[in-house]
């Protein structure tokens, strides 16, 4: 899951990035409000962690601005401002969650997963499609009760497809889910990962829509 972290404090930003990476997130870290807004407008993130006291542009302004632009990704505001009016304003402007520093990294990760899940209309943490169950917190996948070992990228790819089950995702969209900045993306990387997933989970699970991308059907179509 790729998220944007907007935090101007070097130590905290570094710690959050490292911690969230340990917990399986792909983290892009920006240190000012302008960069945060630019990234949110141009890149596709599963969610964003936004500090409010950002230089150049206040976090609240960034939030209001992207909401006006129709960007609906889940935003978790992480701030030192704990006054109730601040919280209310943050939520009203468009934050999906409002967390006061300091926060436990596991809790932050859980909140982010919950935000992403809800954004995709999933009430439960575990995603189950066609007998394949994915646990985002434990980062495990089981098929018919049997644990399937996946690489981190394969897991992220499957997670993205399962979250968007029934929707076709383009190769570019999938790449954005899988790679953070600076990571070299081989031109056929997605194809390779899809290939591996099909080998491990069966070829019928992920379907190719030629010229568009890939889709994971909600229900296995019974072919006559």
């Amino acid at each position, binding site marked *: 899951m790729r998220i944007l972290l907007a935090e*101007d*404090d*070097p*130590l*905290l930003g*570094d*710690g*959050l990035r*490292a*911690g969230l990476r*340990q*917990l399986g997130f792909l983290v892009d870290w920006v*240190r*000012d409000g302008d960069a945060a807004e630019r990234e949110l407008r141009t890149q596709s993130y599963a969610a964003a962690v936004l500090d409010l*006291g*950002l*230089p*150049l542009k206040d976090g609240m302004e960034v939030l209001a601005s992207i909401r006006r632009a129709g960007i609906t990704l889940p935003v978790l505001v992480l701030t*030192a*401002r*704990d006054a109730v009016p601040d919280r209310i304003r943050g939520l009203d402007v468009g934050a999906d969650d409002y967390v*006061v*520093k*300091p*926060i*436990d*990294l*596991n809790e932050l990760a859980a909140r982010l997963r919950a935000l992403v899940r809800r954004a995709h209309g999933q009430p439960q943490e575990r995603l189950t499609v066609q007998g394949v169950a994915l646990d985002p917190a434990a980062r495990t996948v089981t098929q018919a009760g049997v644990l399937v070992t996946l690489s981190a990228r394969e897991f992220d790819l499957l997670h993205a497809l399962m979250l968007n089950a029934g929707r076709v995702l383009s190769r570019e969209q999938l790449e954005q889910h899988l790679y953070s900045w600076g990571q070299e993306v081989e031109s056929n990387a997605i194809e390779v990962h899809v290939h591996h997933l099909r080998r491990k989970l069966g070829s019928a699970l992920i379907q190719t829509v030629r010229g568009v991308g890939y889709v994971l059907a909600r229900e296995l179509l019974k072919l006559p």
Partner: protein
Amino acid sequence: MRMPRSLQGRLLLLVLGLVVGVWLATATLTWIDVRHELDELLDSHLAQAAALLVVQQAAEIDDDHRGVDAPTLHRYAPKVAFQVFHEGTLAQRSSNAPAEPMLEFTGRAPDGFRTIAIGGTAWRVFATRGRERDVQVFVGEQVESRNSILWAVLRSSLGPMLLALPLLALAAWWAVRQGVAPLRLVGRALAQRSPQALQPIAVKGAPSEMTPMLDALNRLFERIADLLESERRFTADAAHELRTPIAAIRAQAQVALGAAADAERLHALQATLQGCDRAARLVEQLLILSRLESGAEHVLVAVDLAALARQVVADAAPLALGKRQGIEVDATEPCTVRGDATLLSVMIRNLVDNAIRYSPSGATVKLAVSNAQGVVELSLDDGGPGMSSDDMERLGKRFFRVVGSGQEGSGLGWSITRRIAAVHQAVVRVARSRSLGGLSVEIDFPGQRVA
């Protein structure tokens, strides 16, 4: 006698004391006056009676007269007595008069008034004699009778006053109580206040004597409210500012715990330590700011700013050299200002630290202290990136907010610098450095004549 502690008691005591004093004085004067008048009147009666007896005796003298006791005609008569002697022999006397002359004839015969004791009683006696000097007349009156009159006069004139005294005391007590009622009202209002209530106190119809006190009290409330508000804001801000470093320490520690690789763990642990140092520095700065904010009086003495500048640069030099920066100080001649050496030191250190931190490797930081026409100027130039005029503006206006720059500063340095400058009534100017291209900070200590 000790004055009572209560104003009411004090007023009551004074009023009643004065009244009683005036009455006593009046009584004394009356006593003296009445006694004088009484003596005059009764003495004249004695003299008159004596004269009468002398005349009568001169008319009635015969050789064979015997001492005759005059009858007692009235119950008051025993209080007066007379004796008439003819050629040394008692001719007549009142029944209560002794046989011996009331006054002894020793040498010169007595004449005029005397007060003597006869049979243990004080008598006022008038002695005189006839023209032929053969008749001697004594008329006496008991002194006690005069005193009785005196007392009677005093009783009737001062008695009602004595009776009125308790009533007067009661009236005075009531009046004084009414008079000090506003004081009691204020006292009650203050006693009922909660410690948080610092709004001005208002007493309806407060007497003009109380207005200065109430005004002073309200001004005090105002100052306390301001102080409390600034304390409250400070505490909130401090807690707020400490959240980020603590969050960083926590995150880094958690990363270290969860790190799979040694390098990652090492990095996180070092970052944790760095976070602790930063939190400690922040606390230190908060404490300095809190001391500055508390409004305590700072003792300003003559301080050589040039010497302080040299010391600070000497201390900071290793840091600058570590970043391969050039650092220099131009402060040769003593420049005395009235100030607090510790605070000034903190201020200069903040400025120099900032310059070193924000300037890249290879840049120069230059501190100078000069004295021109009694104005001591401290200036700091650096070859760093400088600041946009917008940021300079914000630097001036912002208080206690992190100055966002990507650098790990608390943003308190500037607040502290400005506060310390304010304590010294110094003017701070921030501009682009003409000599080095980065930031230029000038602090003027105006009107500080060098002694």
